[in-house]
């Protein structure tokens, strides 16, 4: 059994200073996750804004240094207080997919240049090998190299761009791909294309994913494991189907209850408006 992701006592405290007040925000509060598996898995982290899920992703990506604790991915120590893994090794272990595909590419550079640089610098490939690996990666996300080559980000739709973004992340064969809200900026009708792609990549390419989202339905749809976070604390963690079908924590239940499904209307119990308005 490989340790796919292990966080140990991960804490992150932000200090928000202003003139008259200053407060400490515990974005991560002793987060301990341990996922061991022989096969690649998709782990979802769900929660509302401010729950700490994005901080968790950023910690993994070394974009934020935790106040204490450490993170191990596939037995590699990748992040933690004072942890400095070699750059290339780290980049070959963890790769990100960002929320806004239009923001993820500079509009002054062709999108394929990011792929090419990832191939040469991170994967350490020669020029020809790099192009081959780019072609492979793009094919696996349903795009063709010739359609991408030399184009700028504004020539793509959000979904296409997000797929390029995923292809780039695949190039160095990272053990774990961290996807922070990867579909929230994509039109609802096309979200499932990306979501299904994650599933396919897990199967075909044996990649593990950490899927950060506030959308419980898609999380349920693709995840093997799910972690529900609230105010920096993991309130519930376990097998996705089990957690969703039988939520233990009241917060998880609240979240599930609030999803606007197309199957069942919300129960309208107590009135929100206190008095008669027309009076």
């Amino acid at each position, binding site marked *: 059994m490989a340790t796919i992701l292990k966080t140990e006592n991960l804490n992150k405290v932000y*200090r*928000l*200073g*202003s*003139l*008259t*007040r*200053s407060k400490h925000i515990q974005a991560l509060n002793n987060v301990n996750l341990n996922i061991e598996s022989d096969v690649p898995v998709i782990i979802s982290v769900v929660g509302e804004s401010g729950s700490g899920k994005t901080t968790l992703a950023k910690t993994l990506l070394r974009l934020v240094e935790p106040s204490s604790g450490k993170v191990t991915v596939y037995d590699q120590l990748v992040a933690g207080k004072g942890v400095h893994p070699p750059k290339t090794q780290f980049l070959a272990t963890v790769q990100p997919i960002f929320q806004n595909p239009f923001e993820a590419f500079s509009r002054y550079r062709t999108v394929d240049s990011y792929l090419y640089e990832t191939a040469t610098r991170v994967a350490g490939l020669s020029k020809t090998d790099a192009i081959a690996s780019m072609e492979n990666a793009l094919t696996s996300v349903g795009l063709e190299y010739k359609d991408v080559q030399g184009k700028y980000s504004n020539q793509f739709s959000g979904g296409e761009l997000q797929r390029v973004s995923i292809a780039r992340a695949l190039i160095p064969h990272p053990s774990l791909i961290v996807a922070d809200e990867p579909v929230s900026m994509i039109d609802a009708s096309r979200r499932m294309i990306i979501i299904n792609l994650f599933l396919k990549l897990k199967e075909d390419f044996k990649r593990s994913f950490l899927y950060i989202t506030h959308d419980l339905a898609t999380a349920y749809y693709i995840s093997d494991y799910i972690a529900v976070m609230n105010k920096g604390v993991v309130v519930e963690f376990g097998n996705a189907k089990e957690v969703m079908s039988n939520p233990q924590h009241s917060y998880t239940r609240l979240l599930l209850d609030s999803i606007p499904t197309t199957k069942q209307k919300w129960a309208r119990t107590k009135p929100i408006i206190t008095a008669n308005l027309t009076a």
Partner: protein
Amino acid sequence: MSILQYFAKRIGLYLVVLFIGITVTFFLPRLMPTNPIDGYIGQLQSRAGQTLTQEATAELRSSLEELYGLKGDILTQYFNYLKRVFLQFDFGPSFNSYPQPVSTMIFGALPWTLGLLLTTTLLSWLLGNLIGLVAGYFHNKRSATVLEVIGILLYPIPYYILALTVILVLAYFIPIFPLAPTFPNSGFSFEQVGGILYNSALPAITLVLAGFGWNILSMKSLAYTTKEEPYVIYARLKGTSNWTRMTRYVFRNAMLPQVTALVLSLGTVFNGALLTEILFSYPGIGLLMRTAASSGDYNLLYGAITMSIIAVATAGLVIDLIYPLFDPRIRYR
């Protein structure tokens, strides 16, 4: 971080900036090819009286070095200087007006410069911003374009040209104001204040004219972009009047960077004082600086420039400390 810590940190930074600025300006005048003692002796020798004998000159030279505190190497002078400035705010005696202390001269000139430049800076800020607001808010109206053109045309006219034109128009062709100011000599009666205002009118008008072009243009572009902000659009969709939107929405928000600009420009009044005071023979720090530079009066120069540095650095500090009063977001974040 508590509010006290924040203040302490900001003030610490302020002191470091002051220190660096003062140090740089201490060493700069050393590059001046003018020896103030030569200057003084030369004045005595060739213009003010009698040709001195060699003995007399040598004697005078050594006593002047002693009096001016120019003995010792440059580092000793520097440390003495720092000590005096930071601990006693004492810049030593003026070389040219020995034994007058520099601080006395500066504090004599300070009210003039501050009085003129603070008033005009504020006035041109107010006028410029109001015109700019109207020009930016009604940017597609012809009358607003006219207002903007005023700014565009006023802004690039070099200051000295503007000054000369104003002198000609308001003192010569239409003799409203005096050509050369005669400031009343002392006291503060109502009449004298009137005299000061009357005599300061010309420089004040040029300063306002010179300053408000920039204010028009910057406020115009700010108002113009602010007008496209969602909250202004939403206010329009609420059916609010143009007036309400212009004042309460556009102006209140576009004003914020302009407040910063205002405080910063208040800090740089000494810079502005220079040209004005030279052109209008106005008795302030600027004229003092110019005279000091031309006669190699180090101490006076240090004093005047240090005042300027303190003013700019203080303005920066003040912005940071008062900005929350204007922007509630910073107050409560």
